[in-house]
Every structure is written in C-alpha cells, then in structure tokens.
C-alpha cells in the first residue's frame, strides 16, 4: 500500500476535526500540523491528569515531558484511536515517576506563594479536589479546570459517558461537602 505523501497528510486541520487515528497516522509520517492538532486536542487532558496528581509548579515541565515521550513512542501505539487513553496513561505514569524520583526534600506547598488572591483560592480548592478518589479527581479537574464537557471527557479519555457522568456527579457532591457548600437546587 502506498504511503500517503506528506503533502496529502499536511492539509490544514479542518474545523470538522479529523478523527484521532488519522492525526496519529499523519503524525507518525512526520506531519507537523497533525502533531500540532494532537497537541492542541490533548493538551488539556494531559495538563488535567497531571494537575490531579503532581505539584502544580511541576505540571508545565511534566506536560512537555509527556508529549516528548508520546512523540518518541508514537510508533509503538497499536490502536491509534486510543491515543487519548494512551497519553493519559503516559501522564499518570509520569506523575508517578515524578513522585518516585523526587529527592527527599521538603516540597514547596502548592498554596505558597500564589500569584494573587484568585490563584490562592484556586490552589486551595484544587488541594481539596486532590483528596477525592482518583476517578473523581481527574474527571473533576478536566471538567472544572480544563473546561471540558462530560461528553468531551468521555471522548478524550475513552471512558464511557455513563462513567464520566457518575464520576462528575459523585465527585462534585464530595467536593461540595468538603467545601461546606450546601447544594442550592431544589
């Protein structure tokens, strides 16, 4: 089978959003615009997963590292349509590696120093999110920090929409309890 030319693969990413597997195949062939599109599509997922597990100040560097590894190991991804679940796993593993290899020093607490009062509040709430069970933690970060909808979270993570909806519902309820917020709906 003929390999598509880079020109064929390098057409600008359309608003119609090509499926992940096409972007992965094109990126494997060296097409930069497809890699850019993958980065753009999954930057929030990687950032969110890392934010759920690793110190906030490390997340930018760790995210770059995750994409670096993804770029490097892309050839080994068997199911191109599972790119989201795969890179989320890379992000979780990278966060675990970070904690394993962290030198025995006293870590800077995330809530010190914040850039302004708004950031301080954000970091305080994030710290509470991190005390939730892992499944709720990641889903809530993706919804509330990264701004994804439930269907989008299901799409990029490979989780079923039902699981995401349950995680959002239960996670938000637990978070409200921790924040001492009474649910105001009827």
């Amino acid at each position, binding site marked *: 089978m003929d390999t598509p030319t880079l020109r064929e693969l390098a057409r600008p990413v359309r608003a119609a959003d090509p499926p992940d597997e096409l972007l992965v195949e094109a990126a494997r062939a060296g097409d930069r615009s497809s890699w*850019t599109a993958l980065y753009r599509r999954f930057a*929030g997922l990687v950032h969110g997963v890392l934010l759920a597990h690793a110190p906030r100040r490390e997340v930018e560097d760790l995210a*770059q590292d995750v994409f670096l590894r993804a770029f490097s190991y892309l050839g080994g991804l068997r199911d191109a349509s599972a790119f989201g679940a795969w890179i989320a796993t890379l992000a979780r593993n990278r966060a675990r590696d970070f904690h394993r290899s962290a030198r025995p020093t006293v870590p800077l607490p995330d809530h010190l120093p914040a850039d302004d009062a708004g950031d301080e509040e954000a970091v305080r709430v994030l710290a509470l999110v991190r005390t939730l069970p892992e499944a709720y933690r990641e889903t809530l970060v993706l919804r509330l*920090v990264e701004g994804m909808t*439930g269907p989008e979270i299901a799409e990029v993570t490979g989780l079923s929409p039902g699981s995401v909806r349950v995680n959002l519902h239960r996670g938000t309820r637990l978070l409200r309890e921790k924040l001492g917020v009474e649910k105001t709906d009827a």
Partner: protein
Amino acid sequence: MRDDYLWDKSGEPDPDVERLERTLGRLRAEREPSFDAAPAVVAMPAARRRRPAMWIAGWAAAAVLVIIVGAGVRRWLSPAATGPAWSVARLEGRAPAVDRLHAGQWLETGGGDRARVSVSTVGEMELEPGTRIRLLRTAPGEQRFSLAYGTVHAVIWAPPGLFRVDTPSATATDLGCTYTLTVDRSGAGLLRVTSGWVAFAHGGRESFVPAGAQCHTHAGAGPGTPFYEDAPPGLRQAVEAFDEDPTRRGTALATIAAEARVRDAPTLWHLIGRTSGAERAGMVDALAERVPAPSAAVREGALAGDRAALDRWWNELGLGDADWWRMWESRVPPRDRVP
C-alpha cells in the same frame, strides 16, 4: 436537578459549579499559541514573496514551535536569557562523570554504559555505549553539540533549526524530529531519521533527509545522497556506489534512474545538484518521468543547476515546500549557511 449543566453545560447553570469553574479555571492549560514569541522565531527573509501555501507552512511551523515549546522558548529567546545546562542521567552501566553538562564539557560513555542528556525545553539525546560528545554551545536560539564518535538517538522538541550536532564530516540540523546519528572513528557517519526532518550539510553541500530515509556522510566529502530505507536494494547500493566510488558513477546513475520509484524522487532531486552535463540531464529526465517539472522553465533551470528552479521542483514532490527549510536556514549563523 441541575446536573445537565455539570454534564454538558446545557440547561440552567448551577451557581456552585459556575463558581468552581471560575475559581479553578485560572489553572487551565494554555492550548493556543501565544504568538507574541512567534515573530522573533519565524521572521522570513524580507525579499521573498510568499505564496498562500507558504503562509500555511510558515504558520504551521510557528504553531508547532510555539505550542510545543511553549513558555520555555519565550524564556530562552529573550535577550537576557542564558542557555540551559543539559541534565545527564544514567540509563545503563556506570553513572556518568557529571550530572550537568555545560558548554565546553565533554561526555563519554564506556563500553557498557548508556546515558541520556536532556533539557526540558529542547529535547533529549540518548548516548549508546562508546559515544563521545561535547556541548559546544548552549545559548538563546542555539543548542549545539559535537559528536566525535559513537551513536546518539535524538528527540528534539525545540524550534526547528535551533538544535545542531556537528560531526567530523557534516552538521545535522534538526527540523523538528527524531533521529539516530552514528559516527565512527574515521569520521564517517550515518543519519537515520525516524520522524520529521533533518538537514545534513557541510561545506556548501546539503542533504534534506525526511522520515524513513537515511544518509551517509564521509570525512572530507560531506553528506551523501539520502535514500529511503525501503528503497529497492539495487538503488541503495547504487547510491552508495555513487557517493563512494567515482569510477562507478556512470553505472550507479544508470541503475538509480532505472530502479527509482516515484517515492524515490527526493534521491533523484539531490543527484541533479551533484552531477553535471549529460549525467545531470539523465537525472533531470529520470525525475521528470516520476514527478513532472512544474514548467519548462523549471526544467531548464534544473539543467543549469539553478537552486531556485530546483526548489520549485522540490515543491512538487509532496514533501512540503522548500521555503520551509529556507525559512529556518535564514536563522542559521552565516558561517554555516549553504551559499
């Protein structure tokens, strides 16, 4: 229930969820290019007219480098920035002699040792056993190593054109890629590109090596002719014969012209610039059979060895516009430019 808003942002907004969105949204990842860094990086040669496709290539390149490198690139492109030292880590065998590599320092792996050097905003290189490298320069806009001998596997994250590896016989300039570079103690080398592009150049001779291709280099002769690793064996042997044995040039070129596939057009394109007279005419004919010249003028220009004409023909090969490389070449210090 107002879970619809929590689920897909439809329905009546839940005030608590909205408040959480506002608070936590401050920590959101940056997903869009921050183009304030782009002009410094993608400045085009002023005299060039750019076709729409070139705009696309330019902005795609800008988006890649700005998105991937992100805030880090802004830091090292700022005038006050200083280049980072490279972290050194053991992969196998003995621990490296240093854990940070600064400009001017050498790093050598023993017979059973493997090591990795990395900078988060640039990329990383893995050193195979028996490799000796030196960090020549680490500065805003330039990361440069010298590979004396051995093998390195590079995965480069930095903007194209900013990461280079000198070997005794050619300089590999990253154009956003992963590749393996091997140099033996005679100075001869082999470049194999896994993804993206590498420009391999020395003394006015340049080779563009795309993903899936490889290129030999020889001490005193510079980079050889690139060819795809899946090329017919006869073509591969003929390319090596052309590069290494002047007495077999004629036979080698005839074999290449006969065996080249459409996919091997880049090999033919390179050979036009490395031949003259009847040999060049033969390569022009061979390339035209696989990928017709866009115009008679381009064909005539190629026969005369005109670079602009060759660049226009290159644009027909389906491998991206030559302007893309020229754009990055414009950022290379003059001493390293191909005239």
